[in-house]
């Protein structure tokens, strides 16, 4: 009974509002805007071809947390990409999809996607908008077809209405679904960490954090370049000499790319354990131990890692203290990014 009433209410309000332009129902504290943090380059993702609006963002967020996007209606993007872990998850090294089937790669944290040129560990996806097609149709992840998803949403009581709010049409298409998701994902900007405040002179670093920053600048920043903490390149970080997962070479077919993976951003890295493309390391200490003493040589190893001076335990500790300053507590608690359902 209650359901029918709400439905009726929705129908009536649609009838009342359907000819008007402004039909925002969800009240938002402020209009959604994409702001480039001071000092950052302009974004790679072009919002001019997908005009960001508050209604578009609201729809994208609802879709991000929508379990109807999966074949068994049980898994959403947000199941694997959880806000409290900077949109990664800590339960599985290899993310579990529908029916608990494990994939072969570790879910990365999501932030500052609008600046990225390539997505996935192997960079196989070159545009943020088409990114969701991969998990949606991946057998190990959501195992659904685009047509089914579009049909499910079209037959839902509220989605046609929300698409109308966002894009001015109740006819749902894969294109509008993807554009809405891109609006939400593009808005996931993390630039409020202690490190950012330090850079702006709003806070100071302890001596150890300072020391960690200096070590980082010397040893890590060529690959994990500020402000994104990635140079967006593909590198072999010395994990293996036999490559079960060919990494970038799986895309390019070039032997020189064997075992290279996208340099991950280290923003919020303290929250995004486990680490590496296959989730092999559980802690940041493990990662530093690898860097310090575990680099495996192979023909594609980055030359930067050929001769590494092992880190002292003091250096490791300071590096970890520095990496902790990349945690952005405003980002992981931002109410705009929360599950609205």
């Amino acid at each position, binding site marked *: 009974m209650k359901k029918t009433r709400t439905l009726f209410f929705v129908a009536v309000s649609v009838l009342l509002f*359907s000819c008007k332009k402004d039909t925002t129902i969800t009240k938002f504290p402020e209009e959604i805007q994409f702001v480039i943090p001071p000092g950052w380059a302009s974004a790679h993702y072009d919002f001019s071809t997908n005009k960001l609006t508050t209604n578009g963002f609201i729809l994208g967020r609802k879709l991000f947390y929508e379990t109807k996007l999966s074949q068994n209606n049980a898994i959403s993007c947000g199941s694997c990409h959880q806000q409290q872990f900077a949109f990664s998850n800590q339960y599985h090294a290899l993310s579990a999809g529908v029916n608990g089937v494990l994939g072969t790669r570790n879910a990365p944290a999501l932030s500052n996607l609008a600046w990225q040129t390539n997505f996935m560990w192997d960079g196989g996806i070159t545009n943020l908008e088409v990114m969701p097609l991969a998990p949606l149709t991946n057998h190990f992840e959501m195992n659904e077809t685009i*047509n089914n998803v579009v049909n499910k949403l079209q037959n839902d009581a509220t989605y046609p209405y929300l698409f109308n709010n966002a894009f001015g049409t109740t006819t749902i298409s894969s294109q509008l679904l993807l554009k809405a998701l891109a609006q939400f994902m593009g808005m996931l900007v993390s630039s409020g960490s202690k490190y950012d405040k330090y850079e702006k002179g709003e806070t100071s670093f302890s001596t150890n954090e300072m020391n960690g920053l200096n070590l980082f600048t010397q040893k890590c920043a060529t690959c994990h370049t500020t402000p994104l903490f990635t140079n967006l390149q593909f590198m072999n970080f010395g994990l293996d000499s036999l490559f079960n997962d060919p990494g970038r070479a799986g895309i390019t077919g070039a032997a020189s790319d064997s075992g290279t993976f996208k340099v991950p951003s280290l923003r919020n890295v303290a929250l995004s354990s486990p680490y590496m493309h296959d989730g092999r390391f559980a802690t940041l200490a493990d990662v530093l131990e690898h860097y310090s003493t575990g680099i495996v040589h192979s023909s594609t190893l980055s030359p930067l890692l050929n001769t590494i001076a092992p880190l002292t335990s003091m250096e490791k500790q300071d590096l970890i203290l520095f990496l902790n300053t990349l945690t952005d507590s405003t980002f992981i608690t931002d109410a705009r990014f929360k599950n609205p359902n």
Partner: protein
Amino acid sequence: MKKQFFLFFLIAVFISSCKKDAPVNLNPAGSVIFKFINMAGDSNLILNNIKTYINAHNDTFSVHTFKYYISNIKLTRNDGTIFSEKESYHLIDAGNSKRTQFTLANVPYGNYTAVSFIIGVDSVRNFSGAQTGDLDPALGMFWMWDTGYIFAELAGSSPQDTAHGLNHFFSYAIIGYSGQYNALKTVRLPFYSDTAKVSPLITPQVNLKADVLEWFKTPTIISFAAVPFTDLPNQTTLNFANNYADMFTLQSIRN
């Protein structure tokens, strides 16, 4: 459930009732229909696993999928002016009678003497984000692995393909929009003695043949044993594209 449907229907009716009338087109322009007749040599192509054909390597094969994109269509008028269709992307699917022809609209009146188009999807649209219409990824021609469009697809089975066990399924997905293995091919077809006469009274129909045997013939003879599948931009894939670049011929124009 019924109630939901009814409400949904109500909503739909109401929303469509708000649409404005389409703008009236004042330009003196007509249309041209393009129809694709899919062939294997001289026989009409039949999609199933019973009807068999023989390729230039003397392999026997049958076809269950034959699809390709026709894009960036340009028509040349006898006064030398060129008409380029906007948003010109058409997926032809030999297995779907609704997808073997399309109509070019807003073609200025006049006599047209040639057509050109790309087999595939121009490089920009391969990385420009979510597309719609014939480029909708739901049509199954968007490749998630190194994202981009499949320009053309030919799949079927051949006893000479021994790589795929008892089914002998071969599948060729032609992709690659940049670099040395760029598989985009431009086709130019003069109408010779024929003309497509676009006028207020005539919507010409241009009938083009597409011959699957050309995939295996010139300049590179390809056998199923040597190439059971392609799904990466590489030399083999490019060989197919170079071969099929001349698979289209003009059959007739009906004015």
